[in-house]
């Protein structure tokens, strides 16, 4: 499998470990993520200013992928939503498509809508499949109390993102389940991290972040795992600042999905950039490693298998 890897603007400069661990993990499944230098911003930052300016960048990215005959593989939720939204608009509004194609044609690009946008969770869950992933795992987590924050822009609006059930999302929990991490219900799991308000209304942005931190900690989470790069930056960078303001509150350490998957695939922690997460200490890494054990074949499942066979 081969995808055009859309890293967006934040990941290559602020969360390199997200893309590097993703590559390392996907190599194990023979998935190639092609780096495309020509990709530009997804358009998301301009959405408040001008909606058409928001569509054009994503359109160009899709036209580039289309030229290479590749589907786009996205990590960041906001990039994902921008690409999906643009695709949705351009596939219904032909006049806009034609108008914006005139701009792209200046550099020999045309959007016709052939490229699909795939969130990495969809690739893992649907394209590779849970069984394949399970078959490659050498280790499983035992008792890792992990709060997942889905991020708004992969779930909603569901007609646009077409990712998962917007009210009771399953994909992330299923994938974590294969790693031995059981679902943790907590107040705020499907809500906003506050990133969209940072720099516009900082107090509100921090309030929303604090609300999520409190929710996860009250539910007994030891770690939090954001999917979206904006959520990640809120939890990993803004949380530190927030904690300094609040008499050095204890930090809720932040993990990324490919890092957890990588550990279960037997990849060494230093190849997954764990300590590049600002909230992760070496003690956290040791703790995570101590929670890993070879997967036990579930007896019930074995029985089930025998019955179905």
């Amino acid at each position: 499998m081969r995808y055009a890897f859309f890293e967006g603007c934040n990941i290559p400069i602020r969360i390199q470990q997200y893309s590097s661990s993703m590559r390392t993990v996907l190599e194990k499944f023979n998935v190639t993520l092609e780096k495309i230098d020509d990709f530009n911003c997804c358009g998301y930052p301009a959405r408040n200013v001008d909606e058409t300016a928001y569509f054009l960048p994503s359109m160009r990215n899709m036209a580039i992928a289309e030229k290479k005959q590749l589907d786009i593989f996205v990590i960041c939720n906001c990039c994902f939503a921008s690409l999906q939204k643009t695709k949705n608009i351009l596939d219904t509004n032909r006049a806009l498509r034609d108008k914006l194609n005139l701009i792209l044609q200046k550099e020999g690009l045309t959007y016709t809508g052939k490229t699909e946008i795939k969130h990495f969770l969809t690739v893992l869950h649907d394209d590779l499949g849970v069984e394949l992933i399970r078959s490659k795992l050498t280790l499983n987590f035992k008792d890792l109390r992990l709060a997942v924050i889905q991020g708004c822009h992969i779930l909603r609006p569901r007609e646009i993102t077409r990712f998962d059930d917007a009210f009771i999302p399953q994909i992330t929990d299923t994938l974590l389940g294969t790693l031995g991490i059981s679902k943790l219900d907590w107040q705020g799991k499907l809500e906003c991290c506050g990133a969209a308000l940072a720099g516009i209304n900082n107090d509100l942005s921090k309030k929303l972040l604090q609300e999520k931190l409190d929710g996860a900690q009250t539910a007994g989470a030891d770690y939090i795992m954001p999917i979206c790069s904006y959520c990640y930056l809120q939890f990993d960078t803004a949380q530190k600042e927030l904690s300094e303001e609040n008499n050095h509150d204890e930090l809720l350490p932040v993990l990324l999905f490919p890092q957890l998957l990588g550990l279960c695939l037997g990849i060494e922690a230093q190849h997954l950039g764990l300590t590049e997460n600002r909230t992760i200490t070496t003690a956290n890494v040791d703790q995570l490693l101590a929670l890993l054990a070879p997967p036990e074949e579930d007896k019930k499942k074995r029985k089930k298998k025998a019955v179905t066979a």
Partner: protein
Amino acid sequence: MNFNLLLSFSVIVCLLGLAFQFSKWFTSGISPRPLPSLSARVTNGIKAITTTFFSGKLINVIQSFFVDILFQKRIFTKSVLRWTTHTLIFTGFVLLFLFHALSDTITASLFSDFQPTLNPYLFLRNLFGFMVITGLALAVYRRISGKKQRLKSATADWAALILIAAIMFSGVLLEASKMSSYSTYQRMIEDYSSFSDDTEEKALEAFWVKENGLVSPHFKELPSSELVAAGREINADSCLDCHASNKTAFLSYSLASVMGPILGSGDGSSQVKIFYALHIFACLAFLCWLPFSKMFHMVSAPINLVIKNVTQDQYSGRSNSLNSQMIGLSACTHCGSCSTECSSNMFYEYFDNDFILPSEKVQYLKKIAAKQIISPEVIKKLQEGLYVCTSCDRCTTVCPSGINLKELFINARYSLLQEGPPETALLSHFSFPLALAQNFVDDHLMALKKVTDIFKSTFTTLADKTEPLTIGHDLYQANNSYSSCYSCQRCTNICPVVRSYDNPAEQLGLLPHQIMYSLGIGDLNLALSSQMIWNCSTCYLCQEHCPNNVELCDIFYGLKNKAIQTIKAGANS
């Protein structure tokens, strides 16, 4: 005119120009704060240099000299073709400058047997020239064939290429015309020869006509091989010690053999004079032009690259941050690498504002640093250009001169926001990375207040809330899903923003369902006056939970666009 006079004049112009440029490194700067004094900047600069030399950082300087300056790794990693082009020009030009232009000082003192007419010097001069000319040809090819989108440096680039080409071609033509020139040959004979008879003299001349590209009035036809053979012996005995075969000067010799009759017509002396004058004139023009043009990067780019390698863009205090900023600004060649890779490239295409491209910002920031007067319209566009930036830092990563564009733009952004008009783009997600980086926090808040105030004043006037609500005719047409709203208030009840306020109706102006209601009664300005739209966290919970599929969050985005358009139209009217 006297050569020495011209040379002295050019050197003085060049030195004064360099001094002027160096002084700017320590006196100018772009920052929202007052600049430190000249003495503080110089002292801190010297301190930083001394610390570097007496610490383990010296190794970085040495490494940088080889990797960044001589090898030019930053260009190599981006494009091998571009690297080949630049390296050919750079290496050839520098070697010609050191060993040909400064031959009396450098080459003569390094090699005791130095004679410009001997090998390897004769050959190497041609080789270096060949390198530069090949580089120039590649540069022209790159500009004609692979013209990239959003590359904007054409004029200054061509000027530099033409001037270097003028130096190179006049040099090769000068050497070729000397080879062909009979008067030059005669002068050599007069100065160095002692023939026993006329036959010897004729034989040698025959040999030079046949083998060294000389055009002689005595040999209209090619001389006989016996005569040439005799000449060869004399040449070996008398000339070879001081003058190698012209064939080794392969560039000039080829030119002389093709164009000999033209280059050496008459006795060739006037051609030699013309090309000599041209060559000297081009070289001296280059010298005068250097400090004031993109060619100043020959001085500033290496310094900037070393600074980057040593500091890794982390400076010891504001003085050195500003010193580096100014060195960086002077190292920009307007090559456009940053703009071709700029992540905001499509915003540039859409908003039609050149300043969204980093390379174009830099050209104007140079003017701002030099305190040139710039019209308010240009400032406004520049301010928008500085703000419509995704903070992906790609420009800083790709810049071949290693300019810390990221920090330059942060300083410029807040410096302009301080004086400039309210910037509407502040109210966008472009602000997210800025909030995260915590640079100039207070300045950001002040600029934010300025822009929020203008929204408040504009729309509170337009929407008079003291009057009772009436049905209006100002319909919002971009998304009419609000017409299905039956005010169940589910949106407001689920909104994480509403629940974050003690008194949301007062603090946010209107609540989500009230905004839908305002639109429903045709009072668009009322909806636009609400602070709620700017405080929407875009989480889409309202839209997802609406039983009637009202696309609230999408409508909020639309209202924000509309409000910004209204403000911009007001500012321009």
